[in-house]
């Protein structure tokens, strides 16, 4: 009977040790995942902020300042004019944005406070991506108009 008790004690010890080992493996699995996500978030915000800064210096194919042209079209013209401009003289600017963006084609430029209605986003005809994570950075190009870059994941 004494031998059976010793075996039982050893099996209980084995159970406790297995539980502790499982807990360690579980913690090791999730450790740092939230920190890595936060660092990726920082990168996405930095990308957005830097992209908007770079766009301050962007000129379209006719050599006109991108923000100035966009501002004029957003306040005075229709959505179709903005789209025509983005698909025309500012096409390569948009291509630069999507090729450099970590979100690739799931990047949009939204205009808030413009005379175009409720925060339209270029590309206008594309439905908003069904993403759970969206990173946004914004810049004021006039006191009334904000341009927002959105990265969808």
């Amino acid at each position, binding site marked *: 009977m004494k*031998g059976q008790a*010793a075996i039982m004690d050893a099996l209980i010890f*084995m159970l406790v040790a297995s539980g502790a080992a499982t807990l360690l493996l579980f913690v090791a699995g999730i450790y740092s995942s939230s920190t890595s996500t936060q660092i990726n978030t920082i*990168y996405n915000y930095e990308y957005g902020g830097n*992209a908007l800064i770079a766009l301050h*210096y962007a000129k379209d194919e006719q050599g006109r300042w991108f923000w100035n042209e966009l501002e004029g079209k957003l306040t005075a013209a229709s959505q179709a004019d903005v789209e025509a401009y983005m698909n025309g003289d500012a096409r390569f600017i948009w291509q*630069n944005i999507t090729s450099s963006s970590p979100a690739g084609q799931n990047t949009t430029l939204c205009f808030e406070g413009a005379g175009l209605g409720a925060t339209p986003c270029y590309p206008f005809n594309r439905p908003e991506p069904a993403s759970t994570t969206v990173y946004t950075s914004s810049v004021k190009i006039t006191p009334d108009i904000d341009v927002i870059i959105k990265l969808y994941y």
Partner: protein
Amino acid sequence: MRKGFIGPIGDDLPSIIALMLAMGLFFSSVIYVINVYNQKIADMDMLKGSIEIGRAVMNKGVLTRDDLDSNPNANYVAKSYSLSYDVYLESDTNSCSMESLRFSYLVAMNDAGKIGLHTMMLCTWKG
């Protein structure tokens, strides 16, 4: 000699085997977890250092070729994280090595007085 008695250790042999197995399992998982922990810390440091190198490179707003070729602030950050890095424009023929981390940025470049938009790639690796 008693019937079935196989010595003072023999009687405890089954429980000793179970104890050894339990301790082996526990300590091997501790060693594994320490290795995983160190690897994850190193990966996080690399990621954090890469972002800071990118921040140092982008600090000027409008970049020049000289900023891409040599940037003292970025060199300092890279050294403090024990990282090596390379920055180039996507239009260049360079490419990152397979094991490096890659980050892209939209940058304004002053190329001989003409400012244009470019995609800048930042590659970082250990060492």
